């Protein structure tokens, strides 16, 4: 196991041929000085630097780089050398940093030729220094050791070399910098910073190169251990003198059949035979890099996914989570500030000393100031995040496809019947009271997993205004029609059918867009007989499809069966419903979604109060949506109460009718 050295710590070296790896993140100059037993450097010839990169037993790189490998052969060192100091310096000139404090802490490691780390050291605590003695290899009683030094010099190489006792320090430092500048001019840009893991694999995968002059022995050694690629057939054909060899080889051949056999059988194709998404998708658009100090400008589709649609879906959910979390941070900070101020005020009041003089007032003012300061900070952090999310919303909203877009989005005016089912559907907008203008699209996956319940009750809305129940029912029906129209529009032609139960015919006015464009599967069912008929047919369908799916006999379904997903809009529940119909509804709500039959109830829970708690499971199994803004939806992360608002067709707009006409036309063509 490699020793991680701290400053001043030493470690014995068992190998004589070593590599010293340097990782600095930014280009640095690596050099090494040789010293005698008193640590003195005997002139310029005892310094290996980019100008003279090779000395006996020592080689450094010719140019500045973010990563270095210095080769050291301690056996090849002259007898007089007792110390090898490894130096790092920032190159002068250019646009690089001028002090180590501005770059990541350099990392140096002593490794064997096979790449195994012997000791490593991270040089921390550097600031204004531009040159540093990183490590020292030194002779102690005949054995070599390494010591972590980490001594930095603000005066750069000149000061460092002077400190090492080199008389021509300034002159040498100048020539080093000159050599580096020369090298820098033809060097390529520094590679992107690697993760430590990637660095590790690279290090073991590539054979370490020995220093020049000893390279031939390295090659010879590796040649001796390299496996000799011999063909098993060739070995069998040779004379008996190599019998053991051929026996081994044929054994190996039995274990590993020649590659040719596998090719003859053909490689196994693991790809899905019908799935077409195997090709790598277009890379996601990423935000352009922003000037430092400013957040990046958001881009629509800046998320993971195989298609733009999936990316936008993930981005919208990412925005949803971000807003939930940033609001959680803000609210918890405010709660904390309030409770702390309360405590401090209590303390000030209960302290009898504070009643004398202005001490109490001062304590109260201090507590209030602390409170205000924390709230201000929290608000600033929230505003920063809200600005970012608002900017993101502004670019994402116009980029959304119809299924994700609000009715006011121009994309609906260029509507065409899609060829594929979208991955999700927008049911409305969500927002939080602290940021009412920042609205997150509420996207749910398709096919729907739960039925919908458009609540036509609860006459008191969020802002306290009272909407009369007649008006509310009309709004609920309009919302239901808009949702149904959206579902019809985003499914390919003929793959979605809508049925309506309207026992008393009270929804006739609201249903006009659906009825007149002819997109309904059948006219709205009226009266008790109509209710029974529709429910019985759908119940039978669910039962049939379930039986077929469970029996694994989907082919044996009757040929006349409509394979489209079905949506049943139920108005006026429970008026005109007998117990049998109620039971059927519950069956459809529970079992329908898995076989493509969905329920949309337009109802006031109060109307069904006569059933007592019996219908509670039905309501719970449906997703409640409201025609007016209402804060009843919780996010899955923090559980804030979000205000839901349905996506409304802009008043006076004909977009709904246009879209439904398009759907009806496509359906006649489809038939």
């Amino acid at each position: 196991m490699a020793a991680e050295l701290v400053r001043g710590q030493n470690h014995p070296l068992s190998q004589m041929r070593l590599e010293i790896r340097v990782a600095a993140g930014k280009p640095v100059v690596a050099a090494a000085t040789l010293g005698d037993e008193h640590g003195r450097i005997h002139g310029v010839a005892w310094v290996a630097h980019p100008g003279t990169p090779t000395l006996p037993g020592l080689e450094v790189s010719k140019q500045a780089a973010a990563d270095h490998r210095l080769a050291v052969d301690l056996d090849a060192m002259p007898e007089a050398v007792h110390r090898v100091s490894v130096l790092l310096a920032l190159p002068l000139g250019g646009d690089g940093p001028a002090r180590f404090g501005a770059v990541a802490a350099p990392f140096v490691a002593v490794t064997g030729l096979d790449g195994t780390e012997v000791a490593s050291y991270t040089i921390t605590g550097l600031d204004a220094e531009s040159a540093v003695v990183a490590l020292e290899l030194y002779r102690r009683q005949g054995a070599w050791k390494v010591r972590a030094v980490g001594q930095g010099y603000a005066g750069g190489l000149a000061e460092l070399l002077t400190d090492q006792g080199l008389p021509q320090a300034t002159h040498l430092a100048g020539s080093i910098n000159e050599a580096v500048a020369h090298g820098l001019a033809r060097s390529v840009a520094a590679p992107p910073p690697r993760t430590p893991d990637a660095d590790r694999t690279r290090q073991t995968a590539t054979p370490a190169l020995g220093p020049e002059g000893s390279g031939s022995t390295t090659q010879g050694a590796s040649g001796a251990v390299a496996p000799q690629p011999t063909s098993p057939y060739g070995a069998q054909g040779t004379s008996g003198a190599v019998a053991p060899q051929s026996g081994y080889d044929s054994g190996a051949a039995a274990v590993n059949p020649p590659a040719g056999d596998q090719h003859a059988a053909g490689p196994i194709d693991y790809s899905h035979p019908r799935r077409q998404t195997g090709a790598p998708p277009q890379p996601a658009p990423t935000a352009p890099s922003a000037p430092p100090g400013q957040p990046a400008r958001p881009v629509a589709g800046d998320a993971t996914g195989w298609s733009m649609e999936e990316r936008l879906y993930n981005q919208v959910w990412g925005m949803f989570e971000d807003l939930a979390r940033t609001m959680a941070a803000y609210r918890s900070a405010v709660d904390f500030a309030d409770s702390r101020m309360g405590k401090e005020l209590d303390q000030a009041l209960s302290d009898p000393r504070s009643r004398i003089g202005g001490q109490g007032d001062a304590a109260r003012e201090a507590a209030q100031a602390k409170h205000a300061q924390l709230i201000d900070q929290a608000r600033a952090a929230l505003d920063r995040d809200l600005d970012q999310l608002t900017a993101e919303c502004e670019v994402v909203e116009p980029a959304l496809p119809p299924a994700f877009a609000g009715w006011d989005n121009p994309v609906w005016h260029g509507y065409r019947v899609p060829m594929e089912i979208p991955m999700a559907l927008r049911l409305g907008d969500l927002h939080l009271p602290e940021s009412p203008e920042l609205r997150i699209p509420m996207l749910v996956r398709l096919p729907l997993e739960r039925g919908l319940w458009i609540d036509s009750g609860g006459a008191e809305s969020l802002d306290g205004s009272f909407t009369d129940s007649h008006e509310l029912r009309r709004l609920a029906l309009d919302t239901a029609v808009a949702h149904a129209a959206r579902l019809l529009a985003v499914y390919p032609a003929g793959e979605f059918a809508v049925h309506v139960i309207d026992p008393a015919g009270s929804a006739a006015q609201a249903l006009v867009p659906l009825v007149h464009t002819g997109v309904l599967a059948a006219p709205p069912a009226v009266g008790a007989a109509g209710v029974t008929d529709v429910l019985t047919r759908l119940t039978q369908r669910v039962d049939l499809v379930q039986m077929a799916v469970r029996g694994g006999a989907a082919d044996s379904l009757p040929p006349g069966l409509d394979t489209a997903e079905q949506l049943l809009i139920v108005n006026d529940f429970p008026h005109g419903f007998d117990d049998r119909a109620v039971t059927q509804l519950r069956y459809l709500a529970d079992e329908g979604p898995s076989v493509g039959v969905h329920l949309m109830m337009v109802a006031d829970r109060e109307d069904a109060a006569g059933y007592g708690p019996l219908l509670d499971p039905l309501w719970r199994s449906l997703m409640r949506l409201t025609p007016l803004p209402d804060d009843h939806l919780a996010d899955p992360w923090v559980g804030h109460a979000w205000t839901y608002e349905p996506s409304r067709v802009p008043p006076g707009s004909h977009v709904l009718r246009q879209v439904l006409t398009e759907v009806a036309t496509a359906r006649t063509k489809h038939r």
Partner: protein
Amino acid sequence: MTVNMTKGQAISLQKNDGTGLTAVRMGLGWQAAPRRGLFGSRTREIDLDASAVLFADKQPVDVVFFRHLVSDDGSVRHTGDNLVGGVGQGGDDEAILVDLARVPVHIDQIVFTVNSFTGQTFQEVQNAFCRLVDETNGQELARYTLAGGGQYTAQIMAKVHRSGSGWTLTALGTPTNGRTFQDLMPAILPHL
């Protein structure tokens, strides 16, 4: 005990060019118990858990551990509970990522702890370590070798706390005992 940082040593996470350290990761790794017996399930698995407790003015406000993987504000994330350990070759089996720039303004200290959920002391666990890494460049800031660390089942590892406009990391390295972070609360409080 290899310690890159000595006990109680503080390092500022503020970089010299004024930009603060933005993300730290606490990593925890250990070697899985060897298989033994006729049935693999009879192996006494070793389950170490990493936790981070968020404090505001010495009051615990939020905690990130294996039952609550993301702090409510989303700034501290646990990569998920590992119940058995890894191969013990230096990789993190559990990690907690802290996005310091997003930590709510009232949180002033985050304490990192390690517990042995299955009750083995650190003496019985092979190749166990915990470390703090600067996520932006992968630089290791502090490392403790837990294995052979004595008859303890928990360690209060380090804390990051606000100082000025940035954050400072203080290595604590206090050994203690407990099954989950709740048991450690009395031991954590003196370090706040």
